[in-house]
């Protein structure tokens, strides 16, 4: 059992607060750290990995401080976001070097390469690797000492769907084996495919924490706003407002469109085309006006 505890951690750079009083506990299994770009995910992961001192608060792994404690790396495997990784080495040389730095031998390196299925390209220079191959070799270097905690910063960035699926399978397996796996992402779908437990960080704050289904519900249940143009805006508005899935409609003269606020997302998406057809109204534009990740997240923060 490996538990990573983040206790009232803040980190500021000059007068910019990157992480603001976050407290969370990461236990065994796969946890997703979700948040828009610039939310402070990397800062948080850097503090979890001991590469950045918290301005206040503590990060501990099973009670041991992470900062300035080299011995802790016997238990931590890290997959950094940055690409640089001794490009002049072959994949095998790179993973072997990582094994040796842990006091392990070539067998451990070979095992890790097999785990990520990179044996076929292990004798090629890393400089020639694709993004996905690099990611897998980084993964092998993090797994070489069989760590109980695995930290991955945006591991799926730039991967193609097949590579993404392979890595997800691998992380799922790691979680099932009882390891504590934490990965960051700014893509909700990615996180919910993989993590049962989600921590949401927005603008440096801990916005939500818990089961992905609960968070998903929070996200889909929020009021959705649409901009709709049709052949007869007023008739459409009258027909829509009669249904409880619609909370409000505004006729926007300057845009020549309707601004609709829907409270029941599922029902509204079925209702709109049906109502239009029944009243012989042509829909010209239907566009969600607040689907940006930022607005979804800011809704979560407010919730």
């Amino acid at each position, binding site marked *: 059992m490996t538990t990573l505890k983040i206790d009232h951690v803040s980190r500021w*750079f000059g007068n910019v607060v*990157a992480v603001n009083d976050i407290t969370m506990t990461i236990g065994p299994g796969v946890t997703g750290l979700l948040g828009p*770009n*610039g*939310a*402070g*995910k*990397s*800062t948080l*992961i*850097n503090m979890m*990995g*001991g*590469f*950045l*001192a918290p301005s206040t608060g503590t990060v501990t792994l099973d009670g041991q401080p992470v900062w*300035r404690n*080299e*011995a*802790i*790396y*016997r238990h*931590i*495997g*890290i997959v*950094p*976001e*940055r690409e*640089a*990784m*001794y490009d*002049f*080495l072959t994949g095998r040389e790179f993973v072997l*070097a*990582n094994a*040796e*730095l*842990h*006091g392990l031998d070539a067998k451990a390196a070979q095992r890790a390469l097999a785990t990520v299925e990179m044996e076929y390209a292990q004798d090629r220079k890393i400089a020639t690797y694709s993004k996905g191959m690099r990611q897998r070799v980084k993964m092998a*270097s993090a797994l070489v000492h069989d760590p109980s905690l695995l930290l991955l*910063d945006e591991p799926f960035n730039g991967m193609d769907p097949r590579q993404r699926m392979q890595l997800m399978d691998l992380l799922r397996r790691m979680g099932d084996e009882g390891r504590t796996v934490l990965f960051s992402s700014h893509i909700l779908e990615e996180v919910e495919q993989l993590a049962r437990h989600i921590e949401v960080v927005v603008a440096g704050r801990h916005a939500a924490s818990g089961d992905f289904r609960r968070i998903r519900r929070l996200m889909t249940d929020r009021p959705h706003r649409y901009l709709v143009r049709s052949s007869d805006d007023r008739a459409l508005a009258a027909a829509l407002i009669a249904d409880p899935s619609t909370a409000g409609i505004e006729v926007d003269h300057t845009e020549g469109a309707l601004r609709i606020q829907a409270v029941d997302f599922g029902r509204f998406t079925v209702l709109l085309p049906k109502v239009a057809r029944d009243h012989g109204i042509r829909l010209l534009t239907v566009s969600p006006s607040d689907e940006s990740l930022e607005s979804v997240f800011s809704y979560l923060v407010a919730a």
Partner: protein
Amino acid sequence: MYDPTVARLTYRALLGRRRALILGALPLLLIVISLAVRALTGADDQTASDVLGGFALATMVPIIGVIAGTGAIGPEIDDGSVVYLLSKPLKRPTIIFTKLIVAIAVTMVFSAVPTLIAGLILNGNGQQVAVAYTVAALVSSIAYSALFLLLGTVSRHAVVFGLVYALVWEALFGSLVPGARTLSVQQWSLAVAHKVADAPLVTSDVGLPTATVLLVAVTVLATWFAGQKLRSLTLAGEE
């Protein structure tokens, strides 16, 4: 204190194709100059001492020291790949000490060896000139490596600062302003060389005891401080 894997990674990074070319260029130039001087003026002890002191020791050794010393750690910190060393149960001073050994070895090979060859070409080691400057190159390789390794650990602009120090301080002030010579690795190493090789043409403005103390102090302090800096090295995220 010494980790062979860290050493191997550092050697391979330092002796990668492009950097090896830069490291090899100055020694090659020194040897070409020596061949030309010898061919034009014949063997002359004073000329040999001028070439070795003015070019080899005052310019080439510090520049090689900058390339090897900052290059042993700076690029890794810059591009973030140092994370693969730092995320291991390795004492930070071990990483620094190993990289120092590598930087010293590379600086010595690329500066002291060509100095000796150039000296032999210039006057066949007459009046011990070649040996004396080789000793000076060996000694200053140690101090330069430690200084520039520290610089590579603390600054992103280590190469620029290093070159300014090497060219402006050591080469220019070191030869023009008498006071600056007391605080010059070059002069300290000359003091040691003067004593060791017993070469009358090789002189220093600094006494041997002062030079020795300063050389050891600079090397030890710079290495210790670099180890401390690495312990609290912050890898800021990209956001």
